[in-house]
């Protein structure tokens, strides 16, 4: 009886691991898509409203999901407090605070982290293209991850189920 319950626990644990990995992959894609949306929104604020970066952050914060919403709001508030720091420094500083909450890969985080330095252009088209570039990159990464995820998810689920069975048999 105990052996049966133990086997059930092992199987459930392995399956749960598989499901968790699947959820993490989906969350990763979701965060990439959110980042893409955030950049799209920043871009439209700049293009149509000709809003300054801080104001664009504030407007976008109202439409974005966490953790991006809080991050953008913090960037706006730090700019509004006007301690004299450049936009790039504020952006990096605030992004570092939320980096731990993100499931993005290191190179993906690096892309967002460095965006702050792409500011101070006199020509609105240059600023727009800086935003577009990041937006495109995020879109590309999320499409790639989605494709990768589809094939990976099946393998992960199969492996976790198989792994659970093997482990159970070995222990029995």
């Amino acid at each position, binding site marked *: 009886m105990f052996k049966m319950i133990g086997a059930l626990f092992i199987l459930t644990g392995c399956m749960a691991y598989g499901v968790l990995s699947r959820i993490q992959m989906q969350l990763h894609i979701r965060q990439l898509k959110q980042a893409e949306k955030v950049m799209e929104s920043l871009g439209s604020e700049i293009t149509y409203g000709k809003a*300054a970066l801080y104001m664009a952050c504030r407007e976008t914060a109202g439409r974005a999901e966490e953790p991006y919403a809080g991050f953008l709001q913090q960037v706006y508030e730090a700019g509004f407090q*006007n*301690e004299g720091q450049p936009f790039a420094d504020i952006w990096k500083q605030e992004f570092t605070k939320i980096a731990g909450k993100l499931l993005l890969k290191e190179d993906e985080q690096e892309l967002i982290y460095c965006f702050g330095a792409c500011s101070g*252009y*006199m*020509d609105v088209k240059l*600023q727009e293209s800086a935003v577009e570039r990041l937006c495109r990159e995020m879109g590309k990464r999320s499409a790639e991850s989605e494709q990768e995820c589809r094939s990976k998810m099946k393998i992960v689920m199969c492996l976790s189920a198989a792994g659970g069975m093997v482990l159970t048999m070995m222990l029995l």
Partner: protein
Amino acid sequence: MSKAEEIIGLFPDYLRPMWTKVLRKMDNLQEIRLRNERPVLLSDGKHEWFLKEDGQVTHCREEAFCMGNRELQAILNHICQYSLYAYEDEIRQGYLTVPGGHRIGLAGQVVLEGKESIRTMKYIGYMNIRISREVLGAADSLLPFLYDRGNFRNVMLISPPGCGKTTLLRDLIRQVSDGNRYGDGRTVGVVDERSELAGAYLGRAQNNLGIRTDVLDACPKSVGMLLLIRSMAPRVIAIDELGEREDIQALQQAALSGTGLMVTVHGEGVEDIKRRIFLQEILKKRLFQRFVVLKKENGSCRIDGIYDEDFQACLR
């Protein structure tokens, strides 16, 4: 926030210690002039000082701190919130309005579009920070001449640059709008083409223009006057620095609709104004009942004379 804090806020963090020292000490500053590789000049309208690197002031040129191109770029970027594109129109016109209603004049290399229109300005190497000061009560002595049994008389303020026309007009707007002992408060429409009267920042007036004042910011005067008449039905319209033929036409239309007028114009005095061809039409039609001439003496601005529609002195 104090004026000093507002001005300190214009500078990036690494320049603040120097400016904090000088601005906390000199609360009567009117202008700060920054020029590439030239000494930083401070002025209170009467005297001029050089700024030293340690935040002290001096009259000795050799001790003066010279601002480099890097610093000027950093200041401009900071003022424009690292979004120069958002301030493109203001830069093109050569000035920026910042929180507190202060104005920053800019000069550099102009990039033309066609023959006459300015596309933008690059290599900005000259900045003039003009510290805005509201002088509440500046128009007190003028008010008795501007009302006739409670009715407002159209007024033209005349002076050379830097004699306080805009300051006087600003207080006049406030007093006419709020009401005063000579007349009830009335709705005033302000067309603030250069954001100098209201000192609007992000659409919000930074100066007190009264409780019945509507401000149309950064709008050409000729377009703005007609727009305000149609949309806000002002009883008095105020505009600063009348200067173009289109402004005169709009002014005449405003007068025809029965709206009162408060305007300023550059000039040395009434004789100078009479000689201006573009102004002759409105003078002939006697649109204005009062002409106020301002002068600067020993660094102080004062009313030099008030004239009626026949150019007879009411006060001199």
